């Protein structure tokens, strides 16, 4: 089955971890992930500036490793990201901000990518809230 996965919560929310576990299980079960789309506070789950305490899981870095390892299409909504200060090098330059906290494998793009993924997938699975 083809899944599109949308995430609306930050890396410290249990729902971000649930989404990651779901995505890992989907691939392990032989399914396909057409795209991950991070929206609302989900953009924080892609931030490279998160520092998790040593005895806690670093979900943002686990997301990054997962997307890289499986060469998935990981899209972060650009409007939601700008509003929350999640910027790649290009956007930091464009808006003259000093900090960059988004890099590969994540790509910034628009909401059309969410609709495109939902159309291409058999199932759209959303994760948000606590």
């Amino acid at each position: 089955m083809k899944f599109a996965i949308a995430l609306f919560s930050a890396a410290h929310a249990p729902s971000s971890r649930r989404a990651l576990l779901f995505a890992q299980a989907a691939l392990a079960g032989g399914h396909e992930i057409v795209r991950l789309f991070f929206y609302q506070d989900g953009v924080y789950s892609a931030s490279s500036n998160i520092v998790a305490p040593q005895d806690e899981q670093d979900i943002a870095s686990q997301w990054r490793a997962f997307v890289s390892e499986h060469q998935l299409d990981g899209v972060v909504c650009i409007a939601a990201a700008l509003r929350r200060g999640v910027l790649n090098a290009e956007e930091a330059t464009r808006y003259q901000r000093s900090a960059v906290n988004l890099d590969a494998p994540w790509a910034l793009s628009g909401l059309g990518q969410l609709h495109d993924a939902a159309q291409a997938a058999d199932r759209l699975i959303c994760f948000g809230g606590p």
Partner: protein
Amino acid sequence: MSKSLLVISRQAPWSGPSAREALDIVLAGGAFDLPIGLLFLDDGVFQLATSQDAKAVQQKDLSANLQALSLFGIDDVFACRHSLNERGLVSPASAQPLSSEQIHEMIDRYEQVITL
């Protein structure tokens, strides 16, 4: 044929960016001519309140964006009647009030659902 999508908007317009971000999904889908429905549920029905004064809480007024829905070809706009009644609100003509049973049926009818 395109898959249908129902967006359920559950947050008040002044409670953060959620109301606006739900609406943005709908408008983006409309721009792609996708079959999209929008349901206001729980505190989301506050977005339908008339005579809002967004400036008083230093917010942008969302109601103009709501009026843009029909321009984007979004005509399937609904409001939960129970949520409206709980909050003493009346649905404007642009949003069709639905009973809980009708909402259950509608959620079944749409192929995909996003709740924000």
